[in-house]
């Protein structure tokens, strides 16, 4: 099986300081990988370099494209990369406002991504938008409301619908449950878990919340000071951590 994403020696420096260093991994179709670590460990830098939001200094990010097979996305032309970002890739931001257009309706937020890949029939677009809003548990009578009128949890669910409507194969998520109430988080996690399984998505999820990765991720990468210190199966890394930093991270979680 060809990996969906092959990352080789990815390095990003901010001047003399290391953002992330020599990161390499393969992600296979249907796999969900969590990246955990404290603030400043380089996990968001890594995610942004992978998703093409930030240029790394060295390395390769090879994606198995539908048309041409494995291609290094870092050497792609800008239009090609933007097309990838609208079709096979999706990016769920921690702050829904960064991933939504706040001035247009919920339905238009979802429909817009469909139009970007060529959908033109208004009826079909609206129908798909309503279908997706219901899948993320937003009632049909809210389809014409603007995201501004939504709660934080609803905005986040709308962002997810907007991202998944085009049937991407790889989803990047940056702290998807950050800043939400615990009860809202549980609902969102459950929803994400269902969608990931149903659609057979591959995903890379950055979070500092170990409960989130235990529920969503098949495997984990633990980062500290820009370097990957431990990788493995999620429950193995959490239940039998090998690196001192991971042991500290796991033992620091408050029990309820």
């Amino acid at each position, binding site marked *: 099986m060809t990996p969906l994403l092959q990352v080789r020696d990815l390095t990003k420096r901010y001047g003399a300081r290391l953002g992330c260093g020599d990161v390499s991994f393969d992600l*296979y179709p249907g796999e969900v990988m969590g990246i955990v670590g404290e603030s400043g460990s380089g996990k968001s830098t890594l995610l942004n370099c992978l998703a093409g939001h930030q240029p790394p200094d060295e390395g390769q990010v090879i994606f198995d494209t539908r048309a041409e097979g494995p291609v290094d996305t870092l050497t792609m032309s800008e239009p090609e990369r933007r097309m990838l970002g609208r079709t096979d890739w999706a990016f769920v931001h921690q702050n829904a406002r960064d991933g939504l257009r706040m001035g247009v309706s919920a339905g238009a937020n979802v429909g817009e991504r469909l139009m970007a890949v060529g959908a033109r029939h208004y009826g079909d677009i609206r129908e798909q938008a309503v279908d997706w809003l219901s899948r993320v548990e937003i009632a049909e009578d809210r389809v014409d409301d603007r995201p501004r009128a939504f709660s934080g949890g609803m905005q986040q669910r709308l962002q997810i619908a907007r991202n998944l409507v085009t049937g991407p194969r790889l989803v990047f998520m940056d702290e998807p449950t950050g800043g939400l109430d615990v009860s809202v988080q549980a*609902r969102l996690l*459950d929803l994400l878990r269902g969608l990931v399984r149903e659609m057979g998505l591959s995903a890379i999820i950055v979070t500092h919340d170990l409960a989130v990765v235990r529920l969503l991720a098949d495997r984990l990468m633990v980062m500290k000071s820009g370097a990957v210190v431990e990788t493995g199966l999620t429950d*193995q890394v959490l239940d039998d951590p090998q690196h001192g930093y991971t042991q*500290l991270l796991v033992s620091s979680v408050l029990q309820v």
Partner: protein
Amino acid sequence: MEAMIRVSDVSKSFVLHNQGGAVIPVMAGAALSVERGECVALVGDSGAGKSTLMRMLYGNYLANGGRIVVGDVEVSGAEPREILAMRREVLGYVSQFLRVVPRVPTLEVVAEPVWAAGGSRAEGEARARDLLARLNVPERLWSLSPTTFSGGEQQRVNIARGFAHEFPAMLLDEPTASLDATNRAVVLGLIEEAKARGAAIVGIFHDAEARAQVCDREIDVSGFTPERAA
């Protein structure tokens, strides 16, 4: 034909990096092999390493040395996706407690392993109904999440889930704990059926009668306890 589960010369230590790098050896020279259709009980005092060995078989703990093979998967040294495929198709695990996923109805909790192994929607549901009924979980509870069930009900849901897919190898951690006599008999029946269809089983049973009824052999894990440095 080779044994379904093969363990040879397995060792395990915990290194506590944040407590002065203390090294705690917990197992050395562990060896066992389980044939198809055979049930082997792990025995030994509390703390002897029964659960540790079981967790290593499941890939939840890393072995530091030796070899663990389940079916044709070399657990020691496998990639995460190989372990996950093994857990979906080859090796089932009935833990002591149900790890509840919020909001998912009981029927789906039980049917999920069938779906994960490639079974159809209908097959999974039929199997879940059958097992929940056999384990006397009232039908009015099937559409509810087991989150709010009593301990005994959760344990029966857990067992139903564990036996839903017909795994060729199984790990059972105290499957009869906290069950009444009727349900205990149902579980022992499920274990015997699994053996009859050729499943290789490793179990921990504190219930000595249950152990005597379903297990073919006992392995005392105290024999794998490393020499303590004086």
